[in-house]
Structure formats: C-alpha cells, structure tokens
C-alpha cells in the first residue's frame, strides 16, 4: 500500500471529510474555469471583430431590460447551489460524533500542547488513531492561533478565554507525519536572530508546527499509555547518568518549551529570566518584595507564575503549568536541573 498522494491543487485526502471538501472545490474550480474562458473568450473575440477601422462607426448602444434581468438573475441558481451544499457539509464538519475521543489542545506562542483522555501529554507532536473520530477542545494561553491540518481539511481558530472545538476522523495510517500549522498570525519574539524551521523550530508563527501521526487504534492505546507512565519517571537514556533527575529536567526544559523564554546563559534574559542564576539566589519582585529561591518558590513560579513577578519581567506573561501539564515528578526534575546549573 502506498501513501495517498495529493493532486496539483490539493494535498492528500486523509480524513473522512476531505473528499467532500475536494469535490466541492473541484466543482467550483471547473465552473470558474469555464466562466473565465467564456468571459475572456467573448472579450477577445469582440476586440478583434470590432477593432477600429477606417470608415466604420460604432453601432449606437441599444437597451434590453430582458437581457439585463437574465444575467442578473441566472447566476442565482448556481450561487444557491454552492451555498446550500457548502453549508450542509459545513454543518457535518462542525458536529462531532458522540463517541469521539476527546483531546485537549492548548496553543501558546509558539507551541502546541495536547492532552490525551488518560492525561498523557504531548508537545508539538500528536498521535491519533485511524478510523476513530477525534474531537479537539481547544484554547489558547496567550494570543489567537488557528489549528490547521491541510490533509484533514480542517481549520479552527484557537482563542484565549474561550473553548473552540473541531473534529476529524483519519482514514489512513501515516508513513510520514502530517503537518499541523498555526494559521492565525501570532508573531515572533523581538530581536530573534533567525526563526527558520531548521534553526529554531517552534520559535515564531511560521514555525508553530506540530507533527501528526496516524496509527492503528491498538497502537494508539499502547502509545498513549506508555506516554503516561513515562511522564512519571526519568526517561531510559538518563539511567546511566550520575544525576538522572537533572538529566530529565534538562530534557523537559526543551521538550516543555521553557527554552523559548528561559536561557541557561547568565547573560541572556529574553523574554524570561535566565535560569543560570536562580536557584538559591534572592529574587527581587516587581512589588518590591523578595524571597530566596527554594523548592516552594520554584513550584509556585511554575503553577502560578503571576503570584510573584520577577523585577523587570512584568511585560511577558508566563503561562501557568498545572499538575496535568507538568506533574509533580517533572517539577522535581526541573528543580534538580536548576540546582545543577548553579554548580
């Protein structure tokens, strides 16, 4: 079995709704091509036939209300058809089946976080089961984003302060991951040096991308279960390390997206404070108070970042990371990593 290919105009059809969208698209395409050829055809024909010649005068313009009414009203038939079938498919695409698997999606500058029904978390990659409807419950923790998978022909804005939903049912297992784009402009950090897909993935609007993999339902269950177990202990490749927790913390630092705002270089404070000089230091806050950075302070900074705002960092809001997003064990790993950075 080979992977389904797209056409010159459209990406491969990998969801149940895709063929319906494409049929409509191709219908409109051919209507447009024919109309365009007719209009420009007549135009060119008249321009040649009635080109200005010696001794030939233009015919005086007549008037025909009948002709006017015909070309005013006849497009209505086509338009009514387009509207009607476009709307019925749209409703189908908007109402998820009852038995859909619910996946929670959070968009944040410039990453996607997915939470499976069992609590397993994925970031910037998502696996979904073939042949099962998946319902997305989406929200944004900062600005507008838009969830767009061309191969599934779905797109829905991800809005701060409210939930939006979308659903799809994948029809093929993927050999290569599909791309989830952010289709609503969400900016780039100030003074970023590049921002290209290769150098700095998930660093701005154009690289706010996630890889979607479609697997069999059995494999989906297995993987999601595995992901959940793994989220509670350091990964296998940290086993031989002399400080496995710090090793795990370092991995979480990048995989959870902290790297987008925090550097480990003491000289770089963009857009959040560098982690090089936090642990055990006296931290001064915007409101004038201060505290020595210990376990509780770090935990609070992660769960409720706005409780104490580090001096000079009032502009950027760090998103809160709750128990589901960053379980206690992972916070411990990050603390271990921050300790290690001070050594």
């Amino acid at each position, binding site marked *: 079995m080979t992977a389904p290919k797209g056409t*010159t105009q459209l990406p491969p059809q990998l969801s149940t709704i895709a063929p319906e*969208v494409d049929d*409509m*698209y191709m219908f*409109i395409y051919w209507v*447009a091509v024919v*109309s*365009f050829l007719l*209009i*420009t055809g007549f*135009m060119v024909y*008249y*321009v040649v036939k*009635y080109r*200005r*010649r010696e001794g030939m*005068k*233009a*015919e*005086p*313009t007549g*008037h025909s209300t009948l*002709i006017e009414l015909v*070309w*005013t009203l006849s*497009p209505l038939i086509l338009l009514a058809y*387009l*509207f009607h*079938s476009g*709307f019925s498919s*749209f409703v189908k*695409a*908007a109402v998820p089946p009852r038995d859909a698997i619910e996946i929670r999606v959070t968009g944040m500058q410039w990453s996607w976080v997915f939470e499976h029904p069992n609590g397993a978390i994925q970031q910037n990659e998502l696996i979904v089961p073939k042949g099962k409807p998946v319902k997305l419950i989406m929200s944004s923790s*900062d*600005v*507008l984003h838009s969830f*767009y998978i061309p191969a599934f*022909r*779905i*797109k829905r804005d991800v*809005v*701060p302060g409210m939930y939006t939903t979308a659903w799809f049912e994948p029809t093929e297992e993927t050999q290569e991951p599909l791309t989830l*784009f952010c*289709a609503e402009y*969400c*900016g*780039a950090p*100030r*003074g*970023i*040096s*590049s*921002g*290209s*897909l*290769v150098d700095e993935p998930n*660093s*701005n*609007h*154009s690289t706010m991308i996630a890889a979607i993999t479609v697997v069999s339902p059995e494999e989906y269950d297995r993987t999601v279960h595995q992901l959940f177990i793994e989220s509670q202990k350091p990964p296998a490749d940290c086993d031989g390390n002399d400080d496995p927790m710090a090793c795990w913390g370092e991995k979480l630092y990048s995989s959870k997206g902290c790297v987008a705002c925090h550097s480990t270089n003491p000289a770089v404070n963009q857009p959040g404070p560098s982690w090089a000089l936090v642990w055990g230091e006296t931290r001064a806050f915007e409101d004038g108070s201060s505290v020595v950075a210990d376990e509780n302070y770090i935990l609070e900074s992660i769960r409720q970042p706005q409780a104490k705002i580090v001096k000079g960092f009032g502009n950027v809001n760090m998103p809160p990371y709750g128990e589901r997003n960053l379980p206690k064990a992972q916070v411990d790993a990050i603390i271990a990593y921050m300790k290690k950075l001070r050594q």
Partner: protein
Amino acid sequence: MSTAAEATAAATADQVPNYLNHERSIKSWLFTVDHKRIGLMYLVATFAALLLGGFMALLVRTELMLPGKQWMSADTYNQVFTLHGAIMVFLFIIPAIPGGLGNFFLPIMLGAKDVAFPKLNLFSFYIYVIGSVLAIVAILSGHIDTGWTFYTPYSTRADNSVLWMTMAVFVLGFSSILTAVNFIATVHTMRAPGLTWKRLPLFVWGAYATSVVQILATPVLAITVLMLFVEKAFEIGIFDPSLGGDPILFQHFFWFYSHPAVYIMILPGMGIVNELIATFSRRAIFGYMFVAMSSIALGLLGFLVWGHHMFTSGMSEYSAMVFSALTMLVAIPSGVKIFNWLATLYGGSISLQSPMLYALAFIALFTIGGLTGLPLATLITDIHLHDTYFVVAHFHYVMVGGTVIAFLGGLHYWWPKMTGKMYSETLARIAFTLVFVGFNTTFLTQFVLGSQGMPRRYFDYQDQFQPLHMTSSFGAYILGLGIVLIVWMFVRSLLKGERAPENPWGSAGFEWMTTTPPDPHNFPVTPVIERGPYDYDLCTEEELYTGFRKDLEAKKA
C-alpha cells in the same frame, strides 16, 4: 508655412492660462483650494506610498524565494509584511482614486468650477498628510508587527508604536470622510445645467457610491481604533481576554469596516473602467442604469457580509450560514458589470491604446478575483482555504488586478489632460506587458500554494512549497520593473513629451470638453450639457477631436 502656423498655434496655446501656469509660487500650491491642484498633490503622495509599499512587497518576496532565513529574521519579516499591507491599504489604495483622480475629474465631469467645499478639500488633504506622517513616525520609531488587521489580543499586547499606527489610521479615516462629504454635496448641488442624474458619467456614479460607503463605514473604523487605544492606554478590558474582553468582538468591528472598505477600493476603479471602455469602443455603456445601480448595490451589500472573514473564528454555524448566503449575492452586481462591459464592446469601434489595455486587463483579472471568491464564500471550502495563500492571491486579484490596474489605466487616460503632455505609447505598452505578466506570475502561483495548504504570513516554509514561491518572487520582480518603467515613462513625458491635444482619445466625455491642461476654473464658461457623456452617435467625427473648446469659447464671445 504649416510649421510656422503650428508654432504660432503652440505659442498662443501656451499663453492660455491654465491651472498649472496661472500662478506658480510654492505657496500657490500649498494653500491652493483648486481641486485640480489638490488632486495632483494627492496623486503624488499616494503614488509615493505605492512605491514604498511595493518596495516592502519586494523585500517580502525576496525573503520567501528560498526556505530558511535568507537575509532578515522572522521578527523583521513580520514588520515588513505589516508595513506592506498597512501602507498599501491606508496610504495608497483607499485615498488614491478618490483623492487623486476623483478630486481632479469629478468637478470637471460635472461641469462645475470646483467641489462644493474647496477649503474642506484642502483640509482633508492636510489631514491625509498628517495621518501619513503619523504612520511613518510610528513605523520608524517603533516595532509594528501586527499585520494590517491589528487583531487582538496580539495588537494590544504589542509595542506602543501600534497605538501610533492606529491613531494614524484614525486620522486618515477623517480625511476619507471629508472627501466623501464633499463629493456627495458636489454631485447633488453643482451639476451643470442639463446634466441630469441619467447623464452622470459612470466614474461619478462610482465615486458617489464610494463616498456613501466611506461615510457610513469609516466611523466604525474610528470607533474600533479608539477602543483599541482606550484598552491599551487605560487597561480597560474590551478585546483582551486577560482583561475580561472578547478578542472576536474586535474582528467583528474590524471587518464591519474593512469589508465595505473593499468596495471603497474597487468601486472607483470600476468607475474608471467604464470611462475607458466607453471611450475606446466609441460606444455608450450598455445597461447604463444597471451599471450605475450595481455600484450602489455593491456598496450597500458590502455592509452585510463582513462575517465571511470569520468562518473559522468560532462564531456560530447559523451566523456563518447567513454570512455565506449574503456573500454569494455579491457575485450578482459584480457579474452585471462584467456582462454589460462585454455587451458594450459588442458592436463598438475598439482601439487598443494603452488605457484600453488596462481596462481589458481589469475585466480579465477582476473576473479571476471574483470567481476565486466563490470557494471562499462557500463554507466548506473556505475552512480549508481561509488564512492561506489562496486568500492572499484572491484579494490581490481584486485589489491589484482590479483597483491598481484601473488606477493605472485612469492615470494613462487622463495624463494628457492633467499635464498637457503625451507619453510614449511604446513605453506604455511595454510597461503594461510587464505589469500584466508579472502580476499573474506572482499571484496565480499563490492560488496553488494556498490550496496546497501554505498558510499566510509565514516567514519560513517547508521545501515542498519552494518552486512556487520562487516563481511568485520572479513575477514580483517583473511587476516591480513594470511599475518603475511607468514612473520613468511619465517623468520622461513631463520633461520632453509632445504637447497633448485637447482630446487625444476622441472621447465624448465632458472632461475632454475643456482646454488641456484645464482652465483654472475648469471651463471658460459654464457648459450647458445637451447630451450624455457617452452619446457617440450624437457627435460628429471632428467634434470628437477639436470641436468642444471652440464651441465653449464661442459662447463666451
């Protein structure tokens, strides 16, 4: 003998006072209340904006030629495309035709001495200048990377320079409103004797419909921008959810203005195309009243369809349904225009001089722009195409393939009347070809990019999109070259162009009935209108070329 006669004729013609030479000081320009001089100043200013915005577009296309970072960062890129959009929309395309060509020709076409409120007209030009300066200051001093749409909450969390930019838009809006008020009053009260509504040139109908839309829609933009300002300056939650606001509300406000703004941009362009087609086919526009009313219909319908920009925003399926249905209706008046233009060509005496090339290009390109609106109005296909390059290509076909092409056509057409000089037809044809080929290469490719799923406003992209991006960029360079050639051609015409005759195209339009360049008061005597501007069957052959002015002078004597 004949050369001597020509020389005297030229010498006497030079002594005839016209609006350019009757006063020459700088002050006489800066404080002029002559609508023709104000129109020229608008043309120079808006054309400069076009060049600046076009330069930004070339920067964007250069960066996108290859995937990865070429020579600017994502942050810089975001600022550059924002400036491209904001400059083109607010500084060029909205004011260019009404402010420039409209100001110059609307009163002449009405046989009037000036607009109804000449001082207000000058005032509105200066408001435009202030707005533009504010915009430039905001751009140079700050960091504006919100896109021209200023979507919240991104824009309210951005730099304070965004506030300056929105204030600039606010100020520019006032300029549009004042021009619109002036046009409406002029059309109602200043028509020459005999110029009935049914004899109004269609350019005037277009400008009139535009003015109505401008007066009704622009205040909404002002209110929106003001609310942004209040939210940002006083932290009152209107649009930002972290302050308790609703970000989608902003989109409703924004598009309630910006969709009608599409008609503010396209209706005057359609008006120009009517004039061009009539003149170069020597034939009255078929279905005159239907064409005139379709402008009004487009203008009014334009207020009911803003939601089609928001089908994926999370608004209810039923609102989407209503907006989709209403949007479909826009095709009707647009189609009426196209069909009537074709019917005008039928049986005409068609000459393919450069302005007519632009008019025919307009028909073809606007047709593509309109037809590609169908999959965007159809709900299910819009979900896939929304916020991709398909939309980018679609609105460039309408805005550039439509409005800019019409604007260029109008500029060529009226250039002899405005400046008294002819331009090189050969250069004009070469430039037209470059513009036409360049434009289509740039944007046809973008339809495919979009339907393949390439989102817009992307600094970087995957390798699969590369060949199309590269082609598109080459198209943009060709288009840029065409525009540069046009500028050179016009400058050359000013420096050493031949003297333009009164009516080089043999048009029956009223604006050709006066001297070239026009008299300071447009006509030596108020013309009495005895036929419509397209009644070629009522004109004799020599009347079309020379008859009018003598006729008017004779009345004066």
